[in-house]
């Protein structure tokens, strides 16, 4: 671009062109969404198979995949951004904060699910109480440990929050649609057993992140190709 004085029309054309170029230069690469969508999808389907086919994974809980996958995912996303990011958009800091708090909330929620049953049992025991289940037909009473009912439904509420914020804030239609499907699946999960909660949570992973991730990745690679050919 050579240095020259501009007419008013040329100035306006240049401003429009540059604003569009800046916008096109900060495409989301979709890696984070793809990885997280794959993890939640696999965890959900493994969880469903556990109940459906009576598979004993022994020590392995499919949903612990999510907690394990958070660290390498954060590292991979950070590395890719570090290599490719030459410009930072205004929304990126806000969205990074939303997704970091979401990651922390997932950790805290899993912590809650693991602590609450034993903590509640201990409090009840200290008061000389316990929770029991009574069979209506036989009248048999068995001692049971307290648990959080339909915990995956609670996680599904959490899943929708960052997806909808990103989708609406960045105008990513596939994420808005994924977030709405997420909420519909949450309502369905209230009326089905844990077995199907797992399946629904797997679908949430696919619709919320995997499909939008594929779309974002395709757009990002296309934008990269176009830049190479300019």
């Amino acid at each position, binding site marked *: *671009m050579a240095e020259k004085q*501009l007419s008013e029309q040329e100035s306006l054309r240049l401003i429009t062109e*540059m604003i569009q170029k800046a916008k096109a230069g900060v495409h989301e690469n979709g890696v984070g969404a793809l990885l997280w969508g794959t993890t939640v999808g696999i965890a959900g389907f493994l969880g469903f198979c556990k109940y459906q086919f009576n598979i004993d994974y022994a020590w392995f809980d499919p949903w612990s995949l999510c907690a394990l996958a958070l660290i390498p995912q954060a590292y991979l996303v950070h590395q890719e951004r570090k290599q490719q990011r030459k410009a*930072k958009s205004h929304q990126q800091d806000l969205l990074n904060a939303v997704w970091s708090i979401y990651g922390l909330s997932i950790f805290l929620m899993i912590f809650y699910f693991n602590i609450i049953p034993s903590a509640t049992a201990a409090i009840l025991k200290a008061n000389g109480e316990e929770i029991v289940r009574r069979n209506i037909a036989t009248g048999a009473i068995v001692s049971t440990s307290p648990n959080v009912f339909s915990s995956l439904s609670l996680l599904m509420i959490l899943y929708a929050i960052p997806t909808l914020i990103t989708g609406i804030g960045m105008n990513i239609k596939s994420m808005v649609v994924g977030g709405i499907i997420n909420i519909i699946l949450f309502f369905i999960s209230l009326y089905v057993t844990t077995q199907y909660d797992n399946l629904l949570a797997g679908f949430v992973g696919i619709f919320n992140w995997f499909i939008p991730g594929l779309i974002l990745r395709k757009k990002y690679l296309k934008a990269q190709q176009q830049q190479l050919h300019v």
Partner: protein
Amino acid sequence: MFKELDPILHSQLRLAVVSLLIGVKEAEFTFIKEKTQATAGNLSVQIQKLKEAGYIDVVKQFKDNYPQTICKITPEGVTAFEAYVAALQEYLTPNQ
């Protein structure tokens, strides 16, 4: 009576740089060079002029042992850009 167009902004490359920076929070020198297709030398000179006018902030640092220059528009730059666009609109629609 038309407002005078800001001479700092009314030049092709400086206007291109400010228009790019208005759309992002911050950008590397290489990003601006790639988008404006300017030569490094010319771009450096124009960036320096924008910096002297207080329209942009320039931070020079090292990233993975390579020098990195990051540019960011200042609140003064945003105000000047808005005033420039408003003045342009007056030129293009003088009857309003």
